[in-house]
Protein backbone atom coordinates (compact mmCIF):
# COMPACT_ATOMS: atom_id res chain seq x y z
CA UNK A 1 0.00 0.00 0.00
CA UNK A 2 1.64 3.18 -1.12
CA UNK A 3 1.02 6.71 -0.03
CA UNK A 4 -0.28 7.32 -3.53
CA UNK A 5 -3.65 6.38 -2.09
CA UNK A 6 -3.45 9.66 -0.23
CA UNK A 7 -3.03 11.68 -3.38
CA UNK A 8 -5.69 9.79 -5.28
CA UNK A 9 -8.08 10.04 -2.40
CA UNK A 10 -7.54 13.76 -1.86
CA UNK A 11 -8.00 14.53 -5.51
CA UNK A 12 -11.20 12.51 -5.74
CA UNK A 13 -12.28 13.97 -2.44
CA UNK A 14 -12.11 17.54 -3.70
CA UNK A 15 -14.78 16.90 -6.31
CA UNK A 16 -16.95 15.19 -3.75
CA UNK A 17 -16.32 17.94 -1.23
CA UNK A 18 -17.24 20.78 -3.58
CA UNK A 19 -20.42 19.02 -4.57
CA UNK A 20 -21.16 18.24 -0.94
CA UNK A 21 -20.82 21.89 0.04
CA UNK A 22 -23.48 22.80 -2.50
CA UNK A 23 -25.67 19.95 -1.29
CA UNK A 24 -25.17 20.91 2.34
CA UNK A 25 -26.12 24.52 1.69
CA UNK A 26 -29.30 23.65 -0.17
CA UNK A 27 -30.09 21.08 2.49
CA UNK A 28 -29.76 23.54 5.33
CA UNK A 29 -31.28 26.59 3.69
CA UNK A 30 -33.87 25.04 1.41
CA UNK A 31 -34.49 22.25 3.87
CA UNK A 32 -34.61 19.25 1.59
CA UNK A 33 -32.27 16.58 0.32
CA UNK A 34 -31.64 17.66 -3.26
CA UNK A 35 -31.22 14.59 -5.42
CA UNK A 36 -30.47 16.77 -8.45
CA UNK A 37 -27.13 17.97 -7.06
CA UNK A 38 -25.27 15.14 -8.73
CA UNK A 39 -26.85 15.85 -12.09
CA UNK A 40 -26.06 19.55 -11.75
CA UNK A 41 -22.42 18.47 -11.50
CA UNK A 42 -22.77 16.47 -14.71
CA UNK A 43 -24.63 19.24 -16.49
CA UNK A 44 -21.97 21.68 -15.31
CA UNK A 45 -19.27 19.63 -16.97
CA UNK A 46 -21.21 19.29 -20.22
CA UNK A 47 -22.17 22.96 -20.30
CA UNK A 48 -18.54 23.95 -19.84
CA UNK A 49 -17.64 21.54 -22.62
CA UNK A 50 -20.27 23.05 -24.88
CA UNK A 51 -19.09 26.61 -24.19
CA UNK A 52 -15.50 25.57 -24.77
CA UNK A 53 -16.55 24.00 -28.06
CA UNK A 54 -18.38 27.16 -28.99
CA UNK A 55 -15.36 29.30 -28.22
CA UNK A 56 -13.46 27.17 -30.67
CA UNK A 57 -10.19 25.41 -30.73
CA UNK A 58 -9.16 22.06 -32.14
CA UNK A 59 -9.92 20.20 -29.05
CA UNK A 60 -12.31 22.04 -26.85
CA UNK A 61 -10.09 22.61 -23.89
CA UNK A 62 -7.00 23.52 -25.77
CA UNK A 63 -7.81 26.60 -27.75
CA UNK A 64 -5.80 27.84 -30.68
CA UNK A 65 -2.76 28.57 -28.58
CA UNK A 66 -2.46 25.02 -27.28
CA UNK A 67 -2.16 24.02 -23.67
CA UNK A 68 -1.03 26.39 -20.96
CA UNK A 69 2.01 24.54 -19.75
CA UNK A 70 2.42 22.76 -17.40
CA UNK A 71 -1.32 22.05 -17.49
CA UNK A 72 -3.16 20.00 -20.04
CA UNK A 73 -5.69 22.61 -21.05
CA UNK A 74 -5.59 25.93 -22.88
CA UNK A 75 -7.09 29.29 -21.99
CA UNK A 76 -10.45 28.31 -23.43
CA UNK A 77 -11.14 26.05 -20.46
CA UNK A 78 -11.07 28.62 -17.65
CA UNK A 79 -13.06 31.00 -19.82
CA UNK A 80 -15.51 28.27 -20.71
CA UNK A 81 -15.80 27.40 -17.05
CA UNK A 82 -17.15 30.85 -16.30
CA UNK A 83 -19.68 30.45 -19.06
CA UNK A 84 -20.54 26.98 -17.83
CA UNK A 85 -21.06 28.26 -14.32
CA UNK A 86 -23.45 30.93 -15.52
CA UNK A 87 -25.43 28.39 -17.51
CA UNK A 88 -25.53 25.89 -14.65
CA UNK A 89 -26.80 28.62 -12.35
CA UNK A 90 -29.55 29.38 -14.87
CA UNK A 91 -30.43 25.72 -15.00
CA UNK A 92 -30.67 25.46 -11.21
CA UNK A 93 -32.66 28.67 -10.86
CA UNK A 94 -34.96 27.52 -13.63
CA UNK A 95 -35.47 24.17 -11.96
CA UNK A 96 -36.29 25.88 -8.70
CA UNK A 97 -38.72 28.28 -10.33
CA UNK A 98 -40.53 25.60 -12.30
CA UNK A 99 -40.59 22.86 -9.70
CA UNK A 100 -39.37 23.38 -6.16
CA UNK A 101 -40.61 26.93 -5.58
CA UNK A 102 -44.08 25.95 -6.68
CA UNK A 103 -44.17 23.00 -4.36
CA UNK A 104 -42.83 25.17 -1.51
CA UNK A 105 -45.49 27.80 -2.16
CA UNK A 106 -48.10 25.11 -1.73
CA UNK A 107 -46.71 24.13 1.62
CA UNK A 108 -45.65 20.70 0.41
CA UNK A 109 -43.81 18.47 2.85
CA UNK A 110 -40.05 18.22 2.48
CA UNK A 111 -40.37 14.60 1.40
CA UNK A 112 -42.38 15.67 -1.65
CA UNK A 113 -39.59 18.06 -2.59
CA UNK A 114 -37.17 15.16 -2.29
CA UNK A 115 -39.40 13.07 -4.52
CA UNK A 116 -39.67 15.84 -7.11
CA UNK A 117 -35.88 16.21 -7.04
CA UNK A 118 -35.59 12.49 -7.59
CA UNK A 119 -37.83 12.68 -10.65
CA UNK A 120 -36.04 15.74 -11.99
CA UNK A 121 -32.65 14.07 -11.56
CA UNK A 122 -33.75 11.15 -13.74
CA UNK A 123 -34.96 13.54 -16.41
CA UNK A 124 -31.75 15.57 -16.25
CA UNK A 125 -29.52 12.54 -16.47
CA UNK A 126 -31.40 10.88 -19.28
CA UNK A 127 -31.53 14.25 -21.01
CA UNK A 128 -27.74 14.41 -21.02
CA UNK A 129 -27.61 10.93 -22.44
CA UNK A 130 -30.01 11.89 -25.15
CA UNK A 131 -28.20 15.05 -26.12
CA UNK A 132 -24.60 13.88 -25.82
CA UNK A 133 -24.92 10.06 -25.94
CA UNK A 134 -23.31 7.97 -23.26
CA UNK A 135 -19.88 7.95 -24.87
CA UNK A 136 -17.31 9.59 -22.65
CA UNK A 137 -16.05 13.04 -23.61
CA UNK A 138 -12.89 14.88 -22.67
CA UNK A 139 -11.72 18.44 -22.29
CA UNK A 140 -8.33 17.70 -23.65
CA UNK A 141 -6.32 14.91 -25.15
CA UNK A 142 -3.06 16.15 -23.76
CA UNK A 143 -1.44 13.49 -21.67
CA UNK A 144 0.12 14.51 -18.43
CA UNK A 145 3.15 13.06 -16.73
CA UNK A 146 2.76 12.73 -13.02
CA UNK A 147 5.47 14.56 -11.14
CA UNK A 148 6.97 13.02 -8.02
CA UNK A 149 6.04 14.68 -4.74
CA UNK A 150 8.23 12.67 -2.46
CA UNK A 151 7.45 9.70 -0.22
CA UNK A 152 6.50 7.66 -3.25
CA UNK A 153 3.65 9.93 -4.28
CA UNK A 154 3.08 11.40 -7.69
CA UNK A 155 0.63 13.95 -8.99
CA UNK A 156 0.02 15.65 -12.29
CA UNK A 157 0.09 19.43 -12.52
CA UNK A 158 -3.66 19.35 -13.25
CA UNK A 159 -4.28 17.46 -10.03
CA UNK A 160 -2.23 19.89 -8.01
CA UNK A 161 -4.10 22.78 -9.58
CA UNK A 162 -7.41 21.20 -8.64
CA UNK A 163 -6.30 20.71 -5.06
CA UNK A 164 -5.09 24.29 -4.80
CA UNK A 165 -8.15 25.76 -6.43
CA UNK A 166 -10.45 23.77 -4.17
CA UNK A 167 -8.61 24.90 -1.07
CA UNK A 168 -8.92 28.50 -2.19
CA UNK A 169 -12.61 28.10 -2.92
CA UNK A 170 -13.33 26.56 0.46
CA UNK A 171 -11.51 29.37 2.26
CA UNK A 172 -13.35 31.96 0.21
CA UNK A 173 -16.70 30.33 0.91
CA UNK A 174 -15.98 30.06 4.59
CA UNK A 175 -15.16 33.74 4.73
CA UNK A 176 -18.29 34.55 2.78
CA UNK A 177 -20.49 32.65 5.17
CA UNK A 178 -18.89 33.86 8.38
CA UNK A 179 -17.88 37.44 7.62
CA UNK A 180 -20.31 38.94 5.15
CA UNK A 181 -23.87 40.17 5.36
CA UNK A 182 -24.86 37.61 2.75
CA UNK A 183 -23.37 34.83 4.81
CA UNK A 184 -25.19 36.08 7.89
CA UNK A 185 -28.42 36.11 5.98
CA UNK A 186 -27.79 32.55 4.78
CA UNK A 187 -27.11 31.34 8.31
CA UNK A 188 -30.18 33.13 9.58
CA UNK A 189 -32.45 31.60 6.96
CA UNK A 190 -30.84 28.24 7.64
CA UNK A 191 -31.96 28.55 11.25
CA UNK A 192 -35.47 29.91 10.66
CA UNK A 193 -36.88 31.36 7.44
CA UNK A 194 -39.92 32.73 9.28
CA UNK A 195 -37.83 34.63 11.81
CA UNK A 196 -35.54 35.86 9.04
CA UNK A 197 -38.53 37.47 7.36
CA UNK A 198 -39.51 39.13 10.61
CA UNK A 199 -35.99 40.53 10.86
CA UNK A 200 -36.52 42.05 7.43
CA UNK A 201 -34.47 39.57 5.37
CA UNK A 202 -35.58 38.74 1.85
CA UNK A 203 -35.76 34.97 2.12
CA UNK A 204 -36.44 34.51 -1.59
CA UNK A 205 -33.20 36.36 -2.31
CA UNK A 206 -31.29 34.10 0.04
CA UNK A 207 -32.80 31.09 -1.68
CA UNK A 208 -31.55 32.41 -5.00
CA UNK A 209 -28.06 32.97 -3.68
CA UNK A 210 -28.01 29.46 -2.30
CA UNK A 211 -28.81 28.04 -5.71
CA UNK A 212 -26.22 30.29 -7.32
CA UNK A 213 -23.50 29.08 -4.99
CA UNK A 214 -24.60 25.45 -5.14
CA UNK A 215 -24.84 25.40 -8.91
CA UNK A 216 -21.54 27.25 -9.39
CA UNK A 217 -19.75 24.80 -7.14
CA UNK A 218 -21.40 21.92 -8.99
CA UNK A 219 -20.11 23.24 -12.29
CA UNK A 220 -16.59 23.67 -10.94
CA UNK A 221 -16.68 20.18 -9.45
CA UNK A 222 -17.95 18.70 -12.70
CA UNK A 223 -15.38 20.51 -14.80
CA UNK A 224 -12.56 19.44 -12.51
CA UNK A 225 -13.72 15.87 -12.55
CA UNK A 226 -14.17 16.02 -16.30
CA UNK A 227 -10.67 17.38 -16.68
CA UNK A 228 -9.01 14.82 -14.44
CA UNK A 229 -11.04 11.78 -15.39
CA UNK A 230 -13.72 12.04 -18.08
CA UNK A 231 -17.13 13.48 -18.82
CA UNK A 232 -20.10 11.17 -19.08
CA UNK A 233 -23.83 11.48 -18.37
CA UNK A 234 -23.82 9.33 -15.26
CA UNK A 235 -20.82 11.07 -13.67
CA UNK A 236 -23.08 13.10 -11.42
CA UNK A 237 -25.36 10.29 -10.41
CA UNK A 238 -22.36 8.17 -9.53
CA UNK A 239 -21.30 10.94 -7.19
CA UNK A 240 -24.67 11.19 -5.48
CA UNK A 241 -24.12 8.61 -2.77
CA UNK A 242 -20.65 9.98 -1.95
CA UNK A 243 -22.17 13.47 -1.87
CA UNK A 244 -24.86 12.46 0.59
CA UNK A 245 -22.44 10.51 2.71
CA UNK A 246 -20.02 13.45 2.81
CA UNK A 247 -22.77 15.94 3.66
CA UNK A 248 -24.17 13.84 6.45
CA UNK A 249 -20.72 13.00 7.76
CA UNK A 250 -19.75 16.66 7.87
CA UNK A 251 -23.03 17.78 9.34
CA UNK A 252 -25.72 19.50 7.33
CA UNK A 253 -25.03 23.20 6.89
CA UNK A 254 -21.32 23.09 7.62
CA UNK A 255 -19.01 24.08 4.78
CA UNK A 256 -15.81 22.84 6.39
CA UNK A 257 -17.71 19.71 7.39
CA UNK A 258 -18.81 19.01 3.84
CA UNK A 259 -15.28 19.36 2.52
CA UNK A 260 -13.82 17.21 5.28
CA UNK A 261 -16.55 14.69 4.60
CA UNK A 262 -15.68 14.74 0.92
CA UNK A 263 -12.01 14.16 1.62
CA UNK A 264 -12.80 11.30 3.98
CA UNK A 265 -14.99 9.65 1.37
CA UNK A 266 -12.36 10.22 -1.29
CA UNK A 267 -9.73 8.60 0.84
CA UNK A 268 -12.02 5.70 1.77
CA UNK A 269 -12.77 5.10 -1.89
CA UNK A 270 -9.10 5.15 -2.67
CA UNK A 271 -8.51 2.60 0.05
CA UNK A 272 -11.36 0.42 -1.13
CA UNK A 273 -10.01 0.43 -4.66
CA UNK A 274 -6.61 -0.56 -3.39
CA UNK A 275 -7.81 -3.32 -1.11
CA UNK A 276 -10.90 -4.70 -2.87
CA UNK A 277 -10.52 -3.57 -6.45
CA UNK A 278 -11.82 -0.72 -8.55
CA UNK A 279 -15.25 -2.24 -9.01
CA UNK A 280 -15.97 -1.87 -5.29
CA UNK A 281 -15.24 1.83 -5.17
CA UNK A 282 -18.86 2.88 -4.55
CA UNK A 283 -19.11 0.64 -1.50
CA UNK A 284 -16.90 3.01 0.50
CA UNK A 285 -19.45 5.81 0.57
CA UNK A 286 -22.15 3.36 1.60
CA UNK A 287 -20.11 2.02 4.48
CA UNK A 288 -19.27 5.53 5.69
CA UNK A 289 -22.96 6.50 5.47
CA UNK A 290 -24.07 3.52 7.53
CA UNK A 291 -21.40 4.15 10.15
CA UNK A 292 -22.35 7.81 10.48
CA UNK A 293 -26.05 6.98 10.78
CA UNK A 294 -25.27 4.40 13.43
CA UNK A 295 -22.82 6.40 15.48
CA UNK A 296 -23.58 10.09 15.07
CA UNK A 297 -26.32 10.97 12.61
CA UNK A 298 -25.86 14.69 13.12
CA UNK A 299 -22.35 14.42 11.71
CA UNK A 300 -19.13 16.06 12.77
CA UNK A 301 -20.31 19.67 12.90
CA UNK A 302 -24.03 19.19 12.69
CA UNK A 303 -26.73 20.11 15.10
CA UNK A 304 -28.82 17.06 15.83
CA UNK A 305 -30.69 14.92 13.33
Amino acid sequence: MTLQILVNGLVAGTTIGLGAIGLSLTYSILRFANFTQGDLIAWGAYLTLAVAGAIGGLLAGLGPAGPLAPFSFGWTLPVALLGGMALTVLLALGLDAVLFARLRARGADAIILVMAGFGASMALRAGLEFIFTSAPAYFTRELQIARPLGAGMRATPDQLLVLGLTAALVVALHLLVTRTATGRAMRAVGESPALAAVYGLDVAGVVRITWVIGASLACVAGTMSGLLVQIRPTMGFDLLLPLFAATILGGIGSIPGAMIGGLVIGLSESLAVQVLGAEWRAAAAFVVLVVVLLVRPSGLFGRGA
Partner: protein
Amino acid sequence: MEILAYAAFFLTVAMTYATICLGLNVQWGQTGLFNVGVAAFVGLGAYVSAILTTPEATGRIGGFGLPIAAGWLGAAAAGGVLALLVGALTIRLRSDYLAIATFGVAVALQLVFQNAEPLTGGAFGIGFIPRPFAALQREALAFALTNLALSGAVVLALYLALERLARSPWGRALRAVREDETAAESLGKSPLRLRLEAFVLGGMVMGLAGAVQAHFIGFIAPANYLPALTFQVWAMLILGGSGNNRGAILGAVVVWAIWAATAALIAQLVPAGEQARASSLQLVAIGVALCAILLWRPQGLLPEHRAISRHLSRRP
Protein backbone atom coordinates in the same frame (compact mmCIF):
# COMPACT_ATOMS: atom_id res chain seq x y z
CA MET B 1 -53.04 -16.13 -31.43
CA GLU B 2 -49.68 -14.43 -31.29
CA ILE B 3 -51.29 -11.19 -30.27
CA LEU B 4 -53.12 -12.92 -27.45
CA ALA B 5 -49.93 -14.50 -26.25
CA TYR B 6 -48.16 -11.17 -26.40
CA ALA B 7 -51.01 -9.48 -24.56
CA ALA B 8 -50.91 -12.13 -21.88
CA PHE B 9 -47.16 -11.72 -21.58
CA PHE B 10 -47.51 -7.96 -21.34
CA LEU B 11 -50.20 -8.21 -18.69
CA THR B 12 -48.21 -10.71 -16.69
CA VAL B 13 -45.27 -8.34 -16.48
CA ALA B 14 -47.70 -5.56 -15.61
CA MET B 15 -48.99 -7.75 -12.78
CA THR B 16 -45.51 -8.20 -11.39
CA TYR B 17 -45.05 -4.45 -11.43
CA ALA B 18 -48.41 -4.12 -9.75
CA THR B 19 -47.12 -6.39 -7.01
CA ILE B 20 -44.13 -4.13 -6.46
CA CYS B 21 -46.45 -1.14 -6.37
CA LEU B 22 -48.66 -2.76 -3.77
CA GLY B 23 -45.62 -3.25 -1.57
CA LEU B 24 -44.49 0.31 -2.12
CA ASN B 25 -47.96 1.54 -1.32
CA VAL B 26 -47.78 0.02 2.14
CA GLN B 27 -44.57 1.96 2.73
CA TRP B 28 -45.56 5.23 1.11
CA GLY B 29 -49.33 5.42 0.85
CA GLN B 30 -50.09 4.10 4.27
CA THR B 31 -46.98 5.10 6.16
CA GLY B 32 -45.40 8.04 4.33
CA LEU B 33 -41.95 6.44 3.96
CA PHE B 34 -39.99 7.36 0.84
CA ASN B 35 -38.09 4.30 -0.34
CA VAL B 36 -35.62 5.31 -3.04
CA GLY B 37 -34.15 1.83 -3.26
CA VAL B 38 -37.09 -0.17 -4.56
CA ALA B 39 -34.85 -1.84 -7.12
CA ALA B 40 -32.70 -3.27 -4.33
CA PHE B 41 -35.61 -5.03 -2.64
CA VAL B 42 -36.93 -6.39 -5.90
CA GLY B 43 -33.49 -7.49 -6.99
CA LEU B 44 -32.71 -9.10 -3.67
CA GLY B 45 -35.89 -11.14 -3.82
CA ALA B 46 -35.13 -12.18 -7.37
CA TYR B 47 -31.59 -13.27 -6.62
CA VAL B 48 -32.50 -15.11 -3.41
CA SER B 49 -35.24 -17.03 -5.13
CA ALA B 50 -32.98 -17.76 -8.06
CA ILE B 51 -30.17 -19.03 -5.86
CA LEU B 52 -32.55 -21.23 -3.91
CA THR B 53 -34.19 -22.84 -6.90
CA THR B 54 -31.70 -23.03 -9.74
CA PRO B 55 -29.64 -26.11 -10.51
CA GLU B 56 -25.93 -26.14 -9.83
CA ALA B 57 -23.72 -23.73 -11.71
CA THR B 58 -19.96 -23.56 -11.75
CA GLY B 59 -18.34 -20.78 -9.78
CA ARG B 60 -21.54 -19.83 -8.02
CA ILE B 61 -23.45 -21.17 -5.06
CA GLY B 62 -26.59 -22.99 -6.02
CA GLY B 63 -27.90 -26.43 -6.65
CA PHE B 64 -30.32 -26.35 -3.75
CA GLY B 65 -33.04 -27.19 -6.21
CA LEU B 66 -35.82 -26.08 -3.92
CA PRO B 67 -39.36 -25.77 -5.29
CA ILE B 68 -40.53 -22.46 -6.67
CA ALA B 69 -42.75 -21.78 -3.69
CA ALA B 70 -39.79 -22.09 -1.35
CA GLY B 71 -37.88 -19.65 -3.48
CA TRP B 72 -40.71 -17.18 -3.31
CA LEU B 73 -40.97 -17.50 0.45
CA GLY B 74 -37.24 -16.99 0.75
CA ALA B 75 -37.49 -13.92 -1.44
CA ALA B 76 -40.20 -12.41 0.71
CA ALA B 77 -38.21 -13.16 3.84
CA ALA B 78 -35.10 -11.57 2.38
CA GLY B 79 -37.01 -8.43 1.42
CA GLY B 80 -38.35 -8.28 4.93
CA VAL B 81 -34.95 -8.68 6.54
CA LEU B 82 -33.42 -5.98 4.36
CA ALA B 83 -36.29 -3.65 5.25
CA LEU B 84 -35.82 -4.45 8.91
CA LEU B 85 -32.12 -3.57 8.79
CA VAL B 86 -32.57 -0.34 6.88
CA GLY B 87 -35.63 0.63 8.87
CA ALA B 88 -34.01 -0.01 12.22
CA LEU B 89 -31.12 2.21 11.16
CA THR B 90 -33.16 5.18 10.01
CA ILE B 91 -36.69 5.10 11.33
CA ARG B 92 -35.78 7.26 14.29
CA LEU B 93 -34.11 9.86 12.13
CA ARG B 94 -35.56 12.49 9.83
CA SER B 95 -37.63 11.09 7.01
CA ASP B 96 -35.24 12.04 4.26
CA TYR B 97 -32.51 9.95 5.89
CA LEU B 98 -34.56 6.88 5.07
CA ALA B 99 -34.64 8.07 1.47
CA ILE B 100 -30.89 8.51 1.41
CA ALA B 101 -30.23 5.22 3.16
CA THR B 102 -32.45 3.23 0.81
CA PHE B 103 -30.73 4.95 -2.09
CA GLY B 104 -27.41 3.86 -0.66
CA VAL B 105 -28.66 0.31 -0.23
CA ALA B 106 -29.70 0.23 -3.86
CA VAL B 107 -26.24 1.34 -4.96
CA ALA B 108 -24.53 -1.12 -2.63
CA LEU B 109 -26.70 -4.06 -3.61
CA GLN B 110 -26.24 -3.25 -7.29
CA LEU B 111 -22.51 -3.52 -6.65
CA VAL B 112 -22.97 -6.91 -5.07
CA PHE B 113 -25.17 -8.17 -7.90
CA GLN B 114 -22.61 -6.93 -10.40
CA ASN B 115 -19.38 -8.05 -8.75
CA ALA B 116 -19.90 -10.86 -6.28
CA GLU B 117 -19.64 -13.59 -8.88
CA PRO B 118 -19.52 -16.56 -6.51
CA LEU B 119 -22.81 -15.39 -5.09
CA THR B 120 -24.71 -13.79 -7.91
CA GLY B 121 -23.00 -14.82 -11.11
CA GLY B 122 -21.72 -11.32 -11.67
CA ALA B 123 -22.55 -9.46 -14.83
CA PHE B 124 -23.95 -12.57 -16.47
CA GLY B 125 -26.58 -13.00 -13.83
CA ILE B 126 -28.41 -16.23 -13.20
CA GLY B 127 -30.18 -18.28 -15.81
CA PHE B 128 -32.31 -21.41 -15.93
CA ILE B 129 -34.59 -20.14 -13.23
CA PRO B 130 -37.46 -22.66 -13.04
CA ARG B 131 -40.58 -21.24 -14.59
CA PRO B 132 -44.08 -21.97 -13.30
CA PHE B 133 -46.05 -24.33 -15.57
CA ALA B 134 -42.78 -25.15 -17.25
CA ALA B 135 -44.35 -28.17 -18.91
CA LEU B 136 -46.40 -25.85 -21.07
CA GLN B 137 -43.45 -23.87 -22.33
CA ARG B 138 -43.77 -25.05 -25.88
CA GLU B 139 -47.32 -23.81 -26.20
CA ALA B 140 -46.95 -20.06 -26.18
CA LEU B 141 -50.55 -19.19 -25.50
CA ALA B 142 -51.23 -21.76 -22.80
CA PHE B 143 -47.99 -20.91 -21.08
CA ALA B 144 -48.70 -17.21 -21.24
CA LEU B 145 -52.24 -17.57 -19.96
CA THR B 146 -51.37 -19.84 -17.04
CA ASN B 147 -48.61 -17.51 -15.96
CA LEU B 148 -50.92 -14.57 -16.28
CA ALA B 149 -53.43 -16.37 -14.10
CA LEU B 150 -50.75 -17.04 -11.52
CA SER B 151 -49.36 -13.52 -11.37
CA GLY B 152 -52.87 -12.13 -11.44
CA ALA B 153 -53.78 -14.39 -8.57
CA VAL B 154 -50.81 -13.13 -6.61
CA VAL B 155 -51.93 -9.55 -7.15
CA LEU B 156 -55.49 -10.37 -6.24
CA ALA B 157 -54.50 -12.22 -3.10
CA LEU B 158 -52.19 -9.42 -2.02
CA TYR B 159 -54.80 -6.80 -2.80
CA LEU B 160 -57.43 -8.55 -0.70
CA ALA B 161 -55.01 -9.19 2.13
CA LEU B 162 -53.71 -5.62 2.17
CA GLU B 163 -57.19 -4.13 2.03
CA ARG B 164 -58.20 -6.35 4.90
CA LEU B 165 -55.08 -5.34 6.80
CA ALA B 166 -55.80 -1.66 6.27
CA ARG B 167 -59.17 -2.08 7.94
CA SER B 168 -57.80 -4.21 10.77
CA PRO B 169 -56.79 -2.81 14.18
CA TRP B 170 -53.18 -2.67 12.96
CA GLY B 171 -54.19 -0.72 9.89
CA ARG B 172 -56.28 1.64 11.95
CA ALA B 173 -53.43 2.18 14.37
CA LEU B 174 -51.17 2.97 11.44
CA ARG B 175 -53.64 5.50 10.11
CA ALA B 176 -53.97 7.05 13.55
CA VAL B 177 -50.21 7.51 13.64
CA ARG B 178 -50.33 9.15 10.20
CA GLU B 179 -53.11 11.55 11.08
CA ASP B 180 -51.95 12.60 14.50
CA GLU B 181 -48.83 11.04 15.87
CA THR B 182 -48.97 12.58 19.33
CA ALA B 183 -52.54 11.59 19.93
CA ALA B 184 -51.87 8.07 18.78
CA GLU B 185 -48.87 7.85 21.08
CA SER B 186 -50.87 8.94 24.05
CA LEU B 187 -53.25 6.10 23.31
CA GLY B 188 -50.43 3.64 23.62
CA LYS B 189 -49.57 3.14 19.95
CA SER B 190 -45.91 3.09 19.12
CA PRO B 191 -45.36 5.09 15.94
CA LEU B 192 -41.81 3.86 15.40
CA ARG B 193 -42.77 0.24 15.71
CA LEU B 194 -45.82 0.56 13.47
CA ARG B 195 -43.80 2.31 10.80
CA LEU B 196 -41.10 -0.29 10.97
CA GLU B 197 -43.64 -3.06 10.65
CA ALA B 198 -45.20 -1.40 7.64
CA PHE B 199 -41.79 -0.92 6.06
CA VAL B 200 -40.93 -4.57 6.59
CA LEU B 201 -44.24 -5.71 5.15
CA GLY B 202 -43.66 -3.57 2.08
CA GLY B 203 -40.17 -4.98 1.73
CA MET B 204 -41.51 -8.53 1.86
CA VAL B 205 -44.02 -7.83 -0.87
CA MET B 206 -41.34 -6.26 -3.05
CA GLY B 207 -39.04 -9.22 -2.53
CA LEU B 208 -41.84 -11.54 -3.53
CA ALA B 209 -42.49 -9.45 -6.62
CA GLY B 210 -38.86 -9.77 -7.60
CA ALA B 211 -39.11 -13.52 -7.35
CA VAL B 212 -42.31 -13.70 -9.36
CA GLN B 213 -40.68 -11.63 -12.09
CA ALA B 214 -37.51 -13.69 -12.04
CA HIS B 215 -39.33 -16.99 -12.37
CA PHE B 216 -41.56 -15.73 -15.11
CA ILE B 217 -38.73 -14.46 -17.29
CA GLY B 218 -36.38 -17.30 -16.42
CA PHE B 219 -33.16 -15.31 -16.09
CA ILE B 220 -31.97 -12.25 -14.23
CA ALA B 221 -29.02 -9.92 -14.52
CA PRO B 222 -27.81 -6.90 -12.52
CA ALA B 223 -28.97 -4.62 -15.33
CA ASN B 224 -32.57 -5.47 -14.42
CA TYR B 225 -32.30 -3.68 -11.07
CA LEU B 226 -31.02 -0.25 -11.93
CA PRO B 227 -32.45 3.05 -10.61
CA ALA B 228 -34.62 3.18 -13.72
CA LEU B 229 -36.73 0.42 -12.16
CA THR B 230 -37.20 2.47 -9.01
CA PHE B 231 -38.28 5.43 -11.10
CA GLN B 232 -40.74 3.39 -13.12
CA VAL B 233 -42.37 2.02 -10.00
CA TRP B 234 -42.64 5.43 -8.35
CA ALA B 235 -44.16 6.90 -11.48
CA MET B 236 -46.65 4.03 -11.49
CA LEU B 237 -47.64 4.57 -7.89
CA ILE B 238 -47.87 8.36 -8.00
CA LEU B 239 -49.74 8.32 -11.29
CA GLY B 240 -52.15 5.65 -10.17
CA GLY B 241 -52.90 7.31 -6.88
CA SER B 242 -50.71 6.84 -3.88
CA GLY B 243 -52.39 5.70 -0.73
CA ASN B 244 -54.62 3.54 -2.79
CA ASN B 245 -54.21 -0.14 -3.63
CA ARG B 246 -56.42 0.04 -6.68
CA GLY B 247 -54.43 3.05 -7.81
CA ALA B 248 -51.22 1.08 -7.42
CA ILE B 249 -52.48 -1.65 -9.74
CA LEU B 250 -53.94 0.79 -12.24
CA GLY B 251 -50.79 2.88 -12.31
CA ALA B 252 -48.67 -0.20 -12.93
CA VAL B 253 -50.74 -1.29 -15.90
CA VAL B 254 -50.99 2.20 -17.41
CA VAL B 255 -47.33 3.14 -17.07
CA TRP B 256 -46.19 -0.27 -18.22
CA ALA B 257 -48.46 0.03 -21.24
CA ILE B 258 -46.98 3.41 -22.11
CA TRP B 259 -43.49 2.11 -21.54
CA ALA B 260 -43.96 -0.99 -23.66
CA ALA B 261 -45.68 0.97 -26.39
CA THR B 262 -42.95 3.58 -26.60
CA ALA B 263 -40.28 0.88 -26.50
CA ALA B 264 -41.98 -0.85 -29.42
CA LEU B 265 -42.20 2.43 -31.31
CA ILE B 266 -38.53 3.09 -30.77
CA ALA B 267 -37.60 -0.39 -31.94
CA GLN B 268 -39.68 0.11 -35.10
CA LEU B 269 -38.95 3.67 -36.03
CA VAL B 270 -35.50 4.49 -34.77
CA PRO B 271 -32.37 3.30 -36.61
CA ALA B 272 -30.40 0.74 -34.66
CA GLY B 273 -27.47 3.01 -33.85
CA GLU B 274 -29.70 5.59 -32.22
CA GLN B 275 -31.87 3.31 -30.16
CA ALA B 276 -30.00 3.78 -26.91
CA ARG B 277 -30.40 7.51 -27.25
CA ALA B 278 -34.09 7.21 -27.99
CA SER B 279 -34.57 5.00 -24.95
CA SER B 280 -33.11 7.70 -22.77
CA LEU B 281 -36.02 9.86 -23.89
CA GLN B 282 -38.33 7.37 -22.21
CA LEU B 283 -36.55 8.06 -18.95
CA VAL B 284 -36.71 11.81 -19.48
CA ALA B 285 -40.43 11.39 -19.97
CA ILE B 286 -40.81 9.39 -16.77
CA GLY B 287 -38.90 11.95 -14.75
CA VAL B 288 -40.87 14.83 -16.18
CA ALA B 289 -44.13 12.93 -15.73
CA LEU B 290 -43.40 12.32 -12.07
CA CYS B 291 -42.73 16.01 -11.48
CA ALA B 292 -45.75 17.03 -13.49
CA ILE B 293 -48.03 14.79 -11.50
CA LEU B 294 -46.66 16.10 -8.23
CA LEU B 295 -47.28 19.62 -9.43
CA TRP B 296 -50.67 19.34 -11.09
CA ARG B 297 -52.45 16.23 -9.95
CA PRO B 298 -50.70 14.95 -6.86
CA GLN B 299 -53.56 12.68 -5.96
CA GLY B 300 -53.05 10.64 -9.13
CA LEU B 301 -55.70 8.96 -11.23
CA LEU B 302 -57.60 7.33 -8.38
CA PRO B 303 -57.55 9.75 -5.51
CA GLU B 304 -57.72 8.62 -1.93
CA HIS B 305 -59.59 11.11 0.22
CA ARG B 306 -57.22 10.94 3.15
CA ALA B 307 -53.62 9.87 3.05
CA ILE B 308 -51.02 11.35 0.86
CA SER B 309 -52.56 14.57 -0.38
CA ARG B 310 -51.97 15.84 3.14
CA HIS B 311 -48.24 15.90 2.44
CA LEU B 312 -48.71 17.97 -0.66
CA SER B 313 -50.21 21.10 0.73
CA ARG B 314 -50.13 22.07 4.30
CA ARG B 315 -50.20 25.42 6.01
CA PRO B 316 -47.32 26.34 8.29
